């Protein structure tokens, strides 16, 4: 039994192919203007890489902001449910998952059975999401990939309260002009996102263990700021999937559940 989970996010489309619960492959592509075409292409590439024909696929479940565009999916499920299903399979000890994507941050609380008991989504502000780091990386003229590592070299916490991304940019520019070391500014950027995310997560109620998912979880600087906020270590998935694939993985698992009569 082979199934597919697709997560059509604001920036990237992620695909996970599952056979009897085992991951065959994962694939990621930019979410283009034509979402259906992007999803189609991502699926085809993934299938090709493992040599599976399209008609072998028994069920496709879509999730993510653009899920309704994927007309070839058998059903859709919200990111909240997909994320919960994915993370709970990777880490059954998890009770809270914090998911930070390009434009949205979410916190989800699970019970002992992995069922969603509460969730929160950051409202109307991108300052608690990945796009924020990207904008700041540009203002600082630092490669996005280097942001995490550089922030670890910071020796000083600089408070930054800006909520609007663009205003945060000018706060960053002011800090540059004030000769604040870049490392400290980058840490301030990560602290600012982490503060917003933690605030929102506290509203949902943070219960241990806590896992991070979404692309921003690959940023060690952000993970570090989150750890500092919570005062304990967070789980970041590596195996069988990387953090950005958790919702797609969850969608695939839900597709499988469906076939199993769930």
């Amino acid at each position: 039994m082979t199934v597919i989970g697709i997560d059509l996010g604001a920036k990237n489309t992620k695909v996970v192919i599952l056979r009897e619960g085992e991951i065959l492959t994962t694939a990621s592509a930019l979410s283009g203007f034509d979402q259906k075409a992007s999803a189609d292409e991502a699926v085809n590439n993934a299938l090709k890489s493992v040599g599976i024909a399209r008609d072998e696929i028994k069920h496709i479940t879509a999730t993510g902001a653009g899920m309704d565009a994927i007309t070839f999916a058998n059903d859709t499920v919200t990111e909240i449910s997909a994320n919960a299903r994915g993370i709970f399979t990777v880490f059954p000890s998890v009770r809270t998952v914090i998911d930070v994507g390009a434009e949205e941050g979410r916190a989800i609380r699970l019970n002992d059975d992995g069922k969603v008991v509460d969730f929160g989504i950051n409202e109307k502000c991108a300052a608690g999401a990945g796009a924020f780091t990207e904008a700041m990386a540009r203002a600082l003229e630092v490669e996005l990939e280097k942001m995490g590592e550089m922030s670890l070299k910071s020796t000083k916490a600089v408070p930054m309260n800006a909520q609007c991304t663009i205003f945060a940019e000018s706060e960053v520019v002011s800090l540059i002009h004030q000769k604040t070391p870049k490392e400290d500014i980058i840490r301030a950027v990560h602290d600012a996102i982490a503060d917003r995310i933690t605030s929102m997560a506290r509203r949902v109620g943070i219960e241990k263990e806590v896992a991070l998912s979404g692309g921003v979880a690959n940023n060690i600087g952000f993970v570090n700021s989150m750890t500092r906020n919570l005062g304990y270590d967070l789980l970041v998935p590596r195996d069988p999937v990387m953090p950005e694939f958790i919702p797609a993985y969850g969608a695939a698992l839900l597709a499988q559940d469906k076939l199993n009569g769930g």
Partner: protein
Amino acid sequence: MQLVQKEENNFFNQFKDWYEDRHEYAKAWKERTGGKVIGYFCTYVPEEILYAANILPVRILGSHEPQDVTEPHIFAMFCPFCRDCLAQGLKGRFDYLDGIMIAQSCLHIRQAYTSWDLHIPTDYSYYLPHPMHVQSPHAIPYLKDELIQFKKSLEKWIGHPITEKDLKNGSELMNKNRRLMNQVYELRKKPNPPLTGLEAMYMVVSSQMIDKEEHNSELEVLLQKLPSRDIGDPGERLIIIGSEDDDTKFIEMVEDLGATFVTDDHCTGTRYFQEEVNPSEDLMTAIAERYVKRVPCPSKDWPKRTRLDHIMRMSKEYSVQGAILIQQKFCDPHELDTPAIKEKLEDKGISTLFLEFDVTVPIGQFKTRVEAFLEILREEDLF
């Protein structure tokens, strides 16, 4: 203005230290006196009754640090100040308090009190209903009854009665503090005020957290030396108007640009101490009268806007050239007064600059606005 950092010029260091080490001070005070400490949320709380009961009132203020603990308790549309205050409690910084109380004023700060009441255990908690219609003749008798009820509740808690003599002592202590601070403010009217706005802020804010007895002694020492102090030309003479404000970083930034705050309309400033309790046989009525008739918080200033005339009078007495109107983000009562105040000031030729404060202020961005504002006030050599 740049202060010459001579040892003898540091007249206000004690106030600054008190402000910065407020928690250590209160803990030491408890240790020393064995007395109780009450944290209060609004300057409508009648501190004279607390002093009469030998209780140290400490105003709960924020710490101006970003925080992530209040989101579950206070919806983000309420002002950053009330959230910052609650954060102090949730972080355990006021663990030494024996009780908390509030007098009814705006909705925002009320939430800091109620969430504190729900989640942070304390021995004593009191919500003092307080008239909003202070312009009504019924406000004083109503408040008097509320004060009597509050006094009873306090007596029950401390286990002994509060006598007339205690009340008299409490009122006199508060009055003396008010009188001394008014005397210091009086000196700010001089062409060269002997103190900066930052120093004045340390003085007033520390008075909200330090035993008035000690604060009074320090003020008396200060007043001996202050009249002869010379710190030079004040530059532009500014008034700062608005909600709660203990943002010392902002005041310092403005004064570093060469201007001086010569007075204010803040509840961490003149609104706190301008009026005294009139000596009277019926002290409870006199206390009620003092709080009903004081310069009001905008939440209580209706149907007439009495604060307008007050601000205009102050601006004249202190020879104000420019006004900075600040307000905690989302502070509805002040937002409802700002356009009227701005219009009135500008009518009288006083330029205004409006700024919205958050827990931390973006000094870089605000500096540009303040500099541009000062450039408006300065004719000098550019044209």
